[in-house]
């Protein structure tokens, strides 16, 4: 067995969870592999990790891995995670969400968790569609694309998740793709190591719903699309605007320092006791 597979197996729950719910060819498995490798690389103890999710395809991820795992309500993962982190700051809290979960129903929680700078690492798998319910358009479905609820064409403009995170004040924002798996490992590790509200947007694909309706081909072809349309942050600085028109940047988009909520709250505790 390959070393990399042995490593993955070390973190999977072996009793009663498999087969998993994801379609053959789905990128969520690649993202999960990356998440596990990054956790291993960071050297966290399994007991100190809390993996929190919402609802959707990505929301099903925590059940398969051997951490403290919490599968919450749709869009609300960050609110539960906030409570966990503040009640026990020693825990390493990681949230995984899909695009609909994170920036549609959970959009308000997303911007506020970022603004507050709660120490949570947030992993968002963006496959441009609601997969689990059968391929409806999400806030990240590009203009002009077909889904089961935009059968003629999507006439809404889409969110750019990473830019939203930057605008909301996240101290670390990175973007990767499931095609660039090695790079994703490194970005994931940086996301987890960053203190404060860190975000990694992972561009994935839903070939069974979104890809099929838009004639984008198989999972492999959709991953090729990722390869052809992703440009590293470094390379993008040397490209002209019209060259970047149909491209998206991958790499670290923001890395800055701001006071972290639970550390600031220690000050409040001190002031409160002094005022008593």
């Amino acid at each position, binding site marked *: 067995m390959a070393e990399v597979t042995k490593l993955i197996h070390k973190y999977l729950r072996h009793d009663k969870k498999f087969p998993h719910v994801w379609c053959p060819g789905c990128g969520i498995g690649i993202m999960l592999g990356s998440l596990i490798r990054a956790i291993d690389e960071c050297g966290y103890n399994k007991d100190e990790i809390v993996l929190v999710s919402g609802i959707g395809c990505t929301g099903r991820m925590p059940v398969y891995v051997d951490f403290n795992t*919490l599968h919450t309500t749709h869009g609300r993962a960050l609110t539960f995670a906030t409570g966990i982190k*503040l*009640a*026990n700051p020693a825990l390493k809290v990681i949230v995984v969400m899909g695009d609909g979960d994170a920036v549609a129903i959970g959009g308000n929680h997303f911007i506020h968790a970022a603004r507050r700078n709660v120490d949570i690492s947030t992993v968002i798998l963006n496959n441009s569609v609601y997969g689990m319910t059968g391929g409806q358009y999400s806030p990240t479905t590009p203009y002009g694309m077909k889904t089961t609820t935009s059968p003629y064409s999507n006439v809404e403009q889409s969110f750019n998740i990473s830019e939203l995170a930057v605008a909301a004040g996240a101290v670390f924002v990175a973007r990767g793709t499931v095609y660039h798996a090695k790079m994703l490992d490194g970005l994931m590790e940086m996301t987890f190591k960053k203190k404060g509200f860190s975000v990694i947007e992972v561009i994935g694909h839903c070939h069974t719903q979104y890809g099929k309706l838009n004639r984008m081909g198989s999972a492999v072809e959709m991953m090729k699309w990722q390869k052809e349309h992703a440009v590293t942050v470094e390379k993008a600085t040397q490209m002209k605007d019209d060259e970047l028109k149909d491209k998206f940047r991958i790499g670290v988009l923001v890395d800055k320092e701001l006071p972290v909520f639970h550390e600031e709250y220690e000050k409040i505790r001190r002031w409160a*006791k002094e005022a008593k």
Partner: protein
Amino acid sequence: MKKKTKKELLLQGNEAIVEGALRAGCRFFAGYPITPATEISELLSVRLPQVDGTFIQMEDEIASMGAIIGASLAGAKSMTATSGPGFSLMQENLGYAVIAEVPCVIVDAMRGGPSTGLPTFPSQSDVMQARWGTHGDHPIIVLCPSTVRECYDITIRAFNMAEKFRTPVIILVDEVVAHMREKISIDEDEDIEIFNRVKPTVPPEWYIPYEDTPRGVPAMANFGDGYRYHVTGLTHDIRGFPTSRPDEIDPFIRRLFRKISQHFAELHMGEFFETDDAEITIIAYGCVARSAKRAARDARERGLKVGALKLNTIWPFMRTPVEKVLQTSKIIIVPEMNMGQISREVKRVNKTDAKVFTINKVDGTIITPEEILRKIKEVR
């Protein structure tokens, strides 16, 4: 010299809820401003950090409810407080706390509704929202104080019940009781039972997080204790993993009900006031219970045999105590500040010849003893 631990305080109902919560061990509060519950947030933002607890103002009530569930899973006794509109926003996550069996306390300081309704006039119109606001079949514990002292005691009991039964507990307080001030004495040395969740004593590899027990309540490990397990809002098996097997779903849902229904006697709190020989009994709760007792006393002075049954537990419905007064009284009067949310329950359990009359007030004002006395004269 021994430190004086007994304090005489003039407190608002909301303030007494805060004192009770802290005494019960509450160390996490998440909330969103709303009248008439805001004093609870304001006071806890002062008090919680003094005891190494955490106060956070979330972006809305949905987030507040999520945060207290998360904090509880990480080991903190947690609470939120709101009013009708915010309580509606909490309902989805409230159901999550029921199915995942996460202890927490929710205060709903009731104002008139529906919708934005009557800020801030009193009402008791969330009785059924507290019972059935969240979707799906579920049991729920709802308590209702009628005095400032009861705000203190009932909040402690609410935390104890939440921890003991691994369930959300709702405190329904009407605006009158929430804002009313009364003298109460609190003794820090008073021997009050404080219950903490039962934790597993077995090694992690033996731990079955949703295993049935004689009480119907499984032991609860906190995240970080070394018992890595899965928590989900999906129907789950005894290990906490999602299941769609009928033979696993049925015992799970039935256990959720059984853990409450086999402990009705322990959950039911109330007061029989001069009911033994009463021909007429008033059944009331919240601020109306105060008027009910006064009306009974005034009626007795006029030679009428009137008593009152105060309900401090709203759900599960206090069937046995209510049946007792139904058997001994000819007439029952249920005054409430809604269109009849509890009187319907009284009628439902009535298998006697006793007649049940209602007083329903929905104009944003309280029900006075005189109004109850008038009804007594009218129906006797």
